[in-house]
């Protein structure tokens, strides 16, 4: 069952690479957040502690509902509905995604084997989402898509956390979640201001600001 969730996490990564509609990308991200939030519930059903439940449900609410809401609002305000001319095309991005998948499974096989709780694939999926996020940040023009890429990267890091560091101190885990939340909040406001002053949110044209 948790295998299925990790497969879905990989597939959302590919959807994210292959879609240019921002609304669709945001919904994919919301789905990814919900999937992430539900991993701890499946992984350690018998020893489900109150702390884990709390963190998982908080991240489910923040990543699955609140962040997508902010991002949708930022999208409507900046009137950027579509990633028009990415540096790397969508079809090519998906091919890069396949390579990333291969590299992440190879990396995982090179790592020392640790007893992994939810699924054998967790680490590979974590690497894959890190790579996808990084690639999206590099290859897309719109500031909003880059924020989405940052969030996918963060999701990858969160999978690591779920897989191995579920015993990590409560404060650290919760602090990271809060950081992400604030970061997206601030980025949403920034994007709105950029689009208000410059009529677009294309980052490659921001270099002409220098003066």
């Amino acid at each position, binding site marked *: 069952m948790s295998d299925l969730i990790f497969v879905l996490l990989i597939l959302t990564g590919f959807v994210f690479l292959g879609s240019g509609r921002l609304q669709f990308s945001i919904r994919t991200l919301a789905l990814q957040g919900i999937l992430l939030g539900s991993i701890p519930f499946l992984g350690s059903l018998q020893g489900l502690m109150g702390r884990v439940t709390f963190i998982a449900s908080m991240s489910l609410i923040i990543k699955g509902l609140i962040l997508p809401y902010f991002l949708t609002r930022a999208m409507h305000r900046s009137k950027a509905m579509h990633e028009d001319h990415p540096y790397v095309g969508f079809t090519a991005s*998906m091919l890069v995604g*396949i390579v990333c*998948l291969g590299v992440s499974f190879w990396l995982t096989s090179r790592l020392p084997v640790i007893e992994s709780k939810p699924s054998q*694939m967790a680490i*590979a999926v974590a690497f894959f989402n890190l790579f996808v996020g990084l690639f999206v940040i590099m290859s897309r023009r719109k500031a909003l898509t880059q924020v989405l890429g940052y969030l996918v990267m963060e999701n990858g890091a969160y999978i690591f956390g779920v897989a191995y560091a579920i015993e990590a101190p409560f404060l650290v885990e919760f602090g990271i979640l809060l950081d992400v939340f604030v970061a997206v909040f601030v980025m949403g406001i920034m994007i709105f201001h950029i689009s208000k002053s410059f009529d677009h949110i294309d980052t490659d044209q921001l270099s002409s600001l220098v003066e």
Partner: protein
Amino acid sequence: MLLIPSLALLTIGLIGSPFLLGVINRTKAISAGRKGKPLLQVYFDLIKLLRKDVVYSRTTTWIFRAGPIISLAGLVTGMLLMPHGGSPAILAFSGDFVLLFYLLGIGRFFIILAALDVGSSFEGMGASREALYSALTEPILFAVLVTLVRMTGELSLSAMIIKMSPDFWAGSAAALILLIVILFILLLTENSRIPIDDPNTHLELTMIHEVMVLDHSGPDFGLILYGSALKMWIFSALLTGLVIPLRSGIFWIDLPAFLAGMFLIAIGVGIVESTMARLRLLLVPRMLVGATAIVAVCIFLTLK
């Protein structure tokens, strides 16, 4: 003893394959609120076409005449290799799936050649598109088959399909579901259905398969029509083999299960066709690359 059910199923396939197209058309008609053509309309069309005369252009050579015959011959031979649900194919040996899908490939190659032989630029365009999409689907198809080989440890299509029991399903559900999704996309692509191609458009600049066979007339066109029904049957049979993991070994249980699976797939194709629009031509490669990505996930799933 095993041969009799296989022969029976082969006969059902050879006779019943046009019925699948009828089911698809009926599903589309019902969901559009129409009464629709008779379920046996494809048979009527075939009979009508076979009784007609043939017209050959003076610019064509023997390739044009041989195209439909070779294509149909490949498909009928392919039917011998295709297992139907629980009963094995008449011919089964290691690596028979390679032969099966390259027989289909030969058929397609000769249809493309025949289209080029006409010398019409319109048909040449269709031929080029057909070649492009088949080049994109072939690696996906073989990646699917390689995944199946890895999962089952069998090298022959019949043995692979027979191994699909409920227990096997429970063991690797995630990979199997993905494989079924990809095979369904491949079925739509290979049989030129919506969202990749629209089998009903005959004079449109965006069509793919139909444009190649515009100059075939009479019995020749009948052979092509029957061939496309057989191709639909082959792909649906492969998909049914995975979707319905009922292997009781008793012919009278396996047969209805298999036929029900085929029926369901035809209805599924009909529903997809009536709810989706044709994809823009440029989006088709993106979708096929997406399917490649899913196959890659499958392969990595079976690697561990």
